[in-house]
């Protein structure tokens, strides 16, 4: 007889499964953590290489030399920006037209759901200015975008200056096969979202914008510049985009290749690469860089103006110039040459970048970990959930087996009613919906009754609803008439485990970092949760490993990693601002982290909380 249909063999297998379940789960969990940490160890990673044949090596001759002109343009831009109190539209339009570009403007406006305290804006109104350099001999079917943000104060003046100087230099060349769009966007991400939505004729976030008058064809790649000083010591590459999406690795490889050719120091996550991978410091450095990338990817916000392009399948990256405390400084002309080289290579492309990886982790700029290497870490965590579910399934089926053995007078215990299981599920999800909808909708009422600002009202309402959910099990039991049976909590746990496994699996496929971080904290408590454990201790463990506290730990770890550690109270304020930013990102750009946590992860956690207090 077959392995599974033979009752004796099946009994032996299930006995094995039940006996070894807990040890296997612990081993899997430890293995997953060790695997993940081992990803940063250099011999386990691969060296980056250019995969796209059309881009070839860095063999172009860069001749850009107008560094001085770029700096004088930056000063002019700064002066006009101060005079206009925002985007100096007329000056920019005239400057771009003087350089032979086709210039157009776009105005946009957006009312945020509640005031943004980090950037101090609520009703946002602005203008984007962009100029199109038409390819001299090519049809207008493809385009490249170079963008610099128009930021208030002293930032990013040199970026706009360099943009204009590059535009003038590029206009004199005849080898462009794609149109090049030079974009100056106001109000960073909001302006960028308005421009992209206008370009692609979509409206996903409820922004109001005037339609674009000039268009250039389908965009193949985009580069965003952030430069705030006349000299720099290093260039930082920012890859993480909205919802943790990353551009094609070839773009990072291109940047790294040109940095090496021109002798420019390049960093990722602000950290310079080290050569001593066999020492503890070297490994820690690589692990820190990778952890920073994981944390940035998990929070799902766009860390540079480039992040919004990725949704439209446009490979984009942000390059930020950093003026640090190093001896060797580089001038704007070198950055101009680097950009010229990169854009010339992107010009040679025949198709969109697709030969290299879309899912990867970078412990340093020259080493990468592809999805095939990091996914097993998550897989091991998911296996724990499935093993527990299998164990429960076997357990639930066991009384039926004993009845078959011929004990006729034993009565089959009645299965749990559907209501017993469905009620906690429905109530948890309703709480999740409340957590998603109520903070924003009830802010006026909260502001009336409490002396807080709108932002604080929203965030504190969210925290309040989250904490209120902890009181649910007691109220749920009062609603249910019947007794809570052994069977009841087991069925509920089985459903919840499978639900969590599917949720985390889907999340990890799209945003590995988010899925992995949630799994690391949720899997131990959910796998081991039963009503028979000591209530106080396990309640404390569950709360300490809940999604909200996971976010809090991530905030503290992030601050540690960027070498700006914070105290507990500062950390708490940061945590509140992270929640408000999450809600704002969801409303403004369509980030999915907040809805995922509120509508799916939190109800799942609540179901396990229900199991803990099952009686």
């Amino acid at each position, binding site marked *: 007889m077959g392995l599974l249909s033979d009752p004796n063999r099946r009994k032996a297998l299930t006995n094995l499964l039940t006996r070894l379940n807990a040890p296997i789960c612990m081993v899997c969990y430890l293995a997953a953590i060790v695997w993940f940490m081992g990803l940063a160890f250099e011999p386990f990673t691969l060296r980056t290489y250019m995969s796209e044949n059309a881009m070839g090596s860095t063999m172009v001759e860069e001749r850009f030399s107008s560094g001085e002109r770029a700096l004088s343009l930056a000063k002019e831009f700064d002066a006009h920006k101060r005079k206009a109190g925002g985007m100096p539209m007329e000056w920019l339009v005239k400057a771009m037209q003087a350089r032979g570009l086709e210039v157009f403007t776009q105005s946009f406006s957006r009312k945020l759901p509640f005031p943004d305290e980090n950037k101090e804006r609520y009703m946002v109104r602005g203008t984007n200015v962009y100029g199109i350099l038409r390819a001299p001999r090519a049809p207008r079917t493809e385009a490249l975008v170079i963008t610099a943000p128009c930021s208030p104060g002293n930032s990013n003046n040199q970026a706009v200056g360099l943009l204009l100087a590059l535009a003038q230099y590029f206009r004199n060349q005849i*080898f462009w096969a794609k149109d090049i769009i030079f974009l100056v966007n106001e109000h960073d991400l909001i302006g960028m979202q308005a421009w992209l939505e206008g370009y692609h004729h979509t409206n996903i976030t409820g922004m109001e914008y005037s339609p674009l008058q000039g268009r250039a064809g389908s965009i193949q790649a985009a580069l965003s510049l952030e430069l705030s000083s006349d000299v720099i010591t290093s260039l930082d590459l920012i890859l993480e985009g909205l919802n943790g999406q990353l551009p094609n690795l070839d773009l990072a490889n291109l940047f790294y290749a040109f940095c090496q050719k021109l002798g420019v120091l390049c960093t990722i996550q602000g950290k310079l690469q080290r050569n001593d991978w066999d020492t503890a410091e070297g490994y820690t450095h690589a692990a820190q860089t990778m952890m920073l990338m994981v944390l940035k990817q998990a929070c799902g916000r766009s860390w540079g103006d480039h992040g919004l392009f990725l949704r439209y399948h446009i490979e984009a990256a942000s390059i930020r110039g950093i003026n640090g405390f190093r001896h060797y400084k580089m001038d704007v002309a070198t950055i101009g040459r680097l950009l010229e080289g990169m854009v010339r290579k992107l010009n040679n492309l025949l198709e969109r970048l697709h030969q290299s990886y879309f899912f990867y982790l970078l412990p340093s700029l020259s080493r990468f970990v592809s999805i095939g290497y990091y996914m097993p870490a998550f897989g091991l965590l998911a296996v724990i959930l499935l093993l527990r579910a299998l164990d429960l399934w076997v357990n639930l089926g066991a009384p039926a087996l004993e009845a078959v053995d011929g004990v006729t007078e034993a009565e089959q215990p009645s299965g749990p009613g559907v209501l017993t299981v469905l009620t906690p599920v429905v109530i948890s999800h309703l709480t999740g919906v409340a957590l998603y909808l109520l903070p924003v909708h009830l802010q006026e009422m909260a502001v009336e009754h409490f002396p807080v600002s709108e932002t604080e009202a929203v965030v504190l309402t969210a925290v309040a609803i989250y904490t209120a959910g902890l009181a649910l099990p007691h109220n749920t039991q009062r609603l249910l008439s019947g007794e809570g049976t052994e069977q009841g909590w087991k069925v509920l746990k089985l459903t919840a485990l499978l639900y969590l496994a599917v949720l985390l699996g889907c999340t990890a496929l799209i945003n590995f970092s988010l899925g992995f971080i949630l799994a690391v904290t949720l899997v131990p408590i959910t796998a081991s949760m039963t009503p028979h454990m000591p209530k106080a201790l396990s309640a404390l463990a569950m709360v300490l490993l809940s999604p909200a506290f996971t976010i809090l730990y991530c905030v503290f770890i992030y601050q540690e990693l960027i070498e700006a550690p914070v105290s507990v109270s500062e950390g708490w304020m940061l945590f509140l601002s992270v929640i408000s930013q999450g809600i704002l990102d969801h409303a403004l750009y369509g980030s999915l982290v907040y809805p995922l946590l509120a509508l799916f992860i939190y109800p799942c956690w609540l179901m396990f909380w229900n199991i803990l207090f099952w009686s």
Partner: protein
Amino acid sequence: MDYYNLMRIFAFIHLLVSIPHGYSNYVETKAGQFFSSGHTNNWAVLVCTSRFWFNYRHVANTLSVYRSVKRLGIPDSHIVLMLADDMACNYRNPKPATVFSHKNMELNVYGDDVEVDYRGYEVTVENFLRVLTGRLPPSTPRSKRLLSDDRSNILIYLTGHGGNGFLKFQDSEEISNMELADAFEQMWQKRRYNELLFIIDTCQGASMYERFYSPNLMALASSQVGEDSLSHQPDLAIGVHLMDKYTFYLLEFLEEVHPASQANMNDLFKVCPQSQCVSTPGHRTDLFQRDPGSVLITDFFGSVRKVEITKDTINLTSPVEPPIQRSGSGDIQIESLTYVDQLPVAEIIHQKPKQKDWHPPDGFILGLWTLILLVFFQTYGIKHLKHIF
């Protein structure tokens, strides 16, 4: 004295008689050398099979061989030039209307009188084979045809991306070494060439001439099986590699050759040794009937017209032995081969083909008749038979 004088007169008369005889001997040896190659006209088929800007070097390869061949005398009407992509007018070319072979733009191989016969998407395996075998539709212009005869020496140069046993055309199809060998055999059977020189510059190029089996073929390749042919130098202003190593050194060698040069094939085999080329160039001469040392470069690369003025008549004998009879004097009767009908008229007009010999009737017919007979005898019984017959 008289005797002495007579001797002198005799010697003088003998000398007078023998000078023209010696002279005609001299002329005959010169005539022997004159027709030593056996060809009367030259053709060249130069093919570049890759498209896209980053394959600039393949177009430059082909154009540099075109340039040499034209310089040495083969006219455009006898060159079939097939370029799969237009590099000179590509949007990415910073120097439009030029294709350079040396960096720093020393040599523009595109020139101002280039004549491309097959361009862009017209360069396909089908068109290439049709050019070689001559099976072109009647509407094809003369410039697109290889109008060679049995006294033509043909140079065929292929370049592009290739592998073990195949050459890639246009990123979407391939020609295999077997197809190429069969095409050459068709050319031999249709007497479309006298001698053929085949040069290929791709990765694993030697695999393309492994399968040749027709006579009078000589082949050169830039690398052996398992080796890659490498590109030579990039030009930073243009941003691409300009030439492949083998063809670069071939071009340098050919620049030294002039129409009267006596350089022979052994010098050509020495072009680009492994120290320069990194890959090992190969060649194949076993199918060629003359000694490669006696084959001039200009026999294939140039169109040299030799003129000798004589006042005597000369008997010309063929210096090349006729090829050995394939079938040995009637021992084995080989069935004569026929080509497959290109237009199977019989099938189109639904004619029944004539049967050559009688075959017993089909099993089905037999079975049917047996069934009918059985039924007949079943119904009527055997005893009734005598009433019928």
